[in-house]
């Protein structure tokens, strides 16, 4: 019995159409055969996906799913990219990472806000798997308000000179390019903030040591030092003041994050379902205990809630961006579901949940990473209240 299949058909054909289900099944098979067998080793070795594998995914068209056809992509709705993302992430988040970056990450910022010239120049290499673009926003001192950032860009003729230090950049040191958010003028708050695309090998760019994070192993993370880095003005993707409208692009990334969290939750549920059926304790199948049944039911409810919120937000997005409210609601639900379900999975697995061999502990470690990335739960909840109540809050009180 494959419990995963049951869930998938919880709402029969009404939630996904036949084509979407075929796409999902194709990727699920691929992921199970090609990536699942390596997931544990890659995690232990903190090893990012090989470039050859990224090109293999590109060859299947999976890196260009949401990029318009004129730039080499497939121009398909966001929902389809998220379906692919979930199936890859269920096998290995490391294998899913290039799809996350290409279909919901900075490439989408370029696709939404770049000039035609920029799109034509920058997107095809992403679609082809030749380059991955990472995003870099956070800084050591900026706390939770991104608009406090101090990294600066100074225009000199046709060049932007960039200086500063960036922190918590996922993919740092491994990605070829970085969409760096920075301050382009003297105005305070968000008004002077924009973004430039920086090649990782530009002189003046250096990386701190790779962080040994609790979760997200194999997705590189490091500080980025930018020391008089000269970037062509043509790489200015978001001019000063464009930051405020970027929330639409961030909403796309939040649904990518939601999907990665959902994959954690669904996998923890699938493994728990298998475990409680196979395992016996005190003379009974573990699944025979009502406490266990209640736990499985609570897991199902949380996973399906997150999934339906994700699908609704993604459907609304079409080939564009979802509303900020829908994206934040889905992200919170999925982040919390992943923490809850993977935590419960550890308990259900007894000692085995705590052992590396069963991969349950990896899921729980990752669940915390996703809740911190892309705007913490706390920030998301302030945003939800703000959008829902139609009020603006000072996030500092």
């Amino acid at each position, binding site marked *: 019995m494959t419990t995963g299949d049951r869930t998938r058909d919880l709402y029969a054909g009404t939630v996904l159409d036949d084509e979407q289900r075929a796409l999902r099944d194709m990727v699920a098979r691929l992921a199970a055969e090609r990536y699942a067998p390596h997931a544990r080793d890659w995690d232990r070795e903190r090893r990012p996906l090989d470039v050859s594998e990224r090109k293999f995914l590109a060859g299947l068209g999976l890196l260009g799913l949401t990029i318009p056809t004129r730039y080499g992509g497939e121009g398909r709705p966001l929902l389809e990219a998220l379906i692919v993302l979930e199936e890859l992430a269920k096998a290995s988040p490391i294998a899913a990472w290039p799809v996350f970056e290409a279909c919901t990450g900075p490439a989408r910022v370029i696709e939404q806000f770049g000039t035609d010239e920029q799109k034509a120049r920058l997107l095809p290499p992403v679609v082809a798997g030749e380059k991955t673009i990472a995003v870099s926003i956070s800084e050591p001192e900026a706390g939770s308000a991104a608009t406090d950032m101090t990294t600066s860009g100074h225009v000199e003729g046709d060049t932007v000179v960039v200086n500063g230090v960036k922190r918590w950049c996922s993919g740092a040191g491994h990605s070829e390019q970085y969409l760096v958010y920075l301050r382009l003028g003297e105005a305070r708050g968000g008004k002077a903030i924009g973004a430039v695309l920086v090649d990782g090998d530009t002189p003046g760019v250096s990386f701190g040591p790779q962080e040994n994070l609790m979760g997200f192993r194999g997705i590189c993370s490091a500080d980025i030092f930018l020391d008089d880095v000269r970037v062509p003005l043509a790489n200015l993707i978001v001019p000063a003041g464009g930051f405020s409208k970027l929330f639409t692009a961030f909403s796309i990334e939040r649904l990518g994050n939601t999907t990665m969290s959902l994959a954690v939750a669904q996998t923890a549920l699938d493994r728990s379902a298998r475990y409680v059926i196979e395992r016996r304790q005190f003379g009974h199948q573990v699944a025979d205990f009502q406490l266990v049944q209640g736990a499985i039911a609570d897991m199902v409810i949380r996973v399906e809630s997150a999934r339906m919120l994700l699908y609704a937000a993604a459907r609304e997005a079409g080939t564009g961006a979802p509303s900020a409210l829908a994206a934040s609601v889905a992200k919170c639900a999925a982040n919390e579901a992943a923490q809850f379900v993977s935590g419960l999975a*550890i308990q259900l697995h007894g000692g085995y949940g705590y052992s590396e061999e069963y991969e349950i502990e990896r899921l729980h470690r990752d669940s915390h990473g996703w809740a911190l990335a892309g705007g913490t739960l706390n920030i998301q909840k302030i945003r939800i209240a703000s959008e829902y109540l139609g009020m603006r809050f000072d996030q500092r009180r």
Partner: protein
Amino acid sequence: MDFRFAPEQEEFRAQVRAFVESELPVEWERIDPEGERAWEITCEFQRKLADKKWLAMAWPPALGGLGADLLTQLIYHETMDYYHAPAFTMAVAWVGPAVMLYGNEEQKARLLPRMATGEDVYCTLYSEPGAGSDLAAMQTKAVLDGDDYVITGQKVWTSGAHHANLGWLAARTDPTASKHRGLSTFVVDVDSPGLTVRPLINMAGQHAFNEVFFDGVRVPKANLIGEPGRGWYNIATALEFERSGIEWIAKARRRLDQIIAHVREHRDILENNPQLRFELADRAIEVEVGTLLCYRTIHLAIQGKAMTYEASASKVYNSELTQRVAQTGMKVFGPYAGLGRDDPRSPLTGQLTHSIQSGYLWTFANTIGAGSSEIQRNIIASRGLGLPR
């Protein structure tokens, strides 16, 4: 009713604290607790404890103890655990009491003094792949063959087997008896031929647990502790001791003290997330509560009352509390909580974040180990509340 400790008890607490602060190297909380350096520090620190006869202070002087009362011992453990000091040995905690109760005179004389001095290091060989919470389901066999028992089977989740020279083993001597009646307990030499230790890496990335394989390991009959077939009862006594819980609460208090000190110094944390005020207040209440539960459990033991569900209550509450304290710490430090111990950007030179992060991951073991929380709650419901099974 009096919630105060006596003046001499408070003085003893100060003495223990001073000892830890002077004798435990400052690097202790920064290094890998499962690494070689940690083991060196542990051995040296325990030698000093043995010199003061603190390692088994509640044991009679003849066996290497001080004959201390339980409250004095509680103060000792509470203070040591607050500093995460390596002042606890399984041998003293549960192997010794079982030997005292069920061993013969020769065994007591041979085994107990070396536990009190820390010369012998024990590991506990109970859990098996098919016998976790349901310990009595264990299948490892011990078959009498001449003057030896021959042991065959596998144990898991064995703490510190890679440092131990002796093992405290429960195995099945009578396969025909009911599952609680066919077990016996042994002391086994870890270097015995046929015994293999294989490391397990845990969620916090540490090597604290092992799998131990027995392939026809021969254990002399003289090392059978207690009567054959009574093993379940021997280890049940020991498990109840393990459940008093002061170790969790003392560690949780330290962690919370450190988190609060950090939050006091970094005003932006509460400015960015004012809800943490409430969460910290809740944790502070809970640490007080958990401490009172432990004190009361020990107090009951001193009164000579049976510790049954009271100890379970204390264990459930305190082991779950350590998880909540660590979760609060994760929120306070955000992404920094996820950094490795060696990272210079970890708050307090890695000591605090590491303690929180590995604490967070480790605490899952606390709610699973020594009878999971569910089992503890069952004990409370049956023995404490008299509910039908």
